[in-house]
């Protein structure tokens, strides 16, 4: 069945370090992936997305890498700041029978230590 999961539930880094958050997906037909950031008490906030015809996409301080061979997605945050502390979710777009929906992973809690 379809599922999106994360390798690590928590990640702790020092301020200024680079962070890498990983995600594995199981549906090889998924063609669109998104990373969301969720701060305590708030709704998910879009960070960056990538379509399956790309391997890499860069934003401001963030990079998403997609490896379709092993069905792996990662989010890299450069020069991590305390404000980056949050739970990060990957989500995949699944298409089945003409319908579409987002399937979220369980989330990785990133803690940035000053």
């Amino acid at each position, binding site marked *: 069945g379809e599922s999106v999961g994360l390798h690590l539930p928590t990640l702790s880094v020092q301020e200024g370090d680079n962070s890498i958050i990983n995600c594995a997906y199981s549906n090889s037909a998924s063609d669109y992936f998104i990373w969301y950031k969720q701060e305590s008490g708030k*709704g998910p906030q*879009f960070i960056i997305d990538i379509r399956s015809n790309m391997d890499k996409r860069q934003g401001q301080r963030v990079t998403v890498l997609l490896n379709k061979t092993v069905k792996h997605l990662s989010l890299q945050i450069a020069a991590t700041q305390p404000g980056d502390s949050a739970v990060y979710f990957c989500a995949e777009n699944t298409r089945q029978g003409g319908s579409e929906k987002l399937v979220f992973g369980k989330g990785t809690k990133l803690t940035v230590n000053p």
Partner: protein
Amino acid sequence: EPEVTQTPSHQVTQMGQEVILRCVPISNHLYFYWYRQILGQKVEFLVSFYNNEISEKSEIFDDQFSVERPDGSNFTLKIRSTKLEDSAMYFCASSEFGLAGVGYEQYFGPGTRLTVT
């Protein structure tokens, strides 16, 4: 910057009661969604809505749930007879276009915490 708003922020209800959660999507968006998140767990898709009808729903979205766009601005989720296991954060989201199009990005509201006692 435009944002999705939700009311109330916290709703406490007794088991068996009906609740209506309200959302105001971003004004030029055409696609609307409800998700829920049980405490400490992942965000789960409930339903998507476009052109005044449900376009997709999950197995969670059973006959106890319904959605409505009663006017040009509000999007509501109704739970007819709440159960203890309905306790969760409910997030509304909207997007300008559907998943296949540019401008797909879903903007989430701050959520309504539903507590069923």
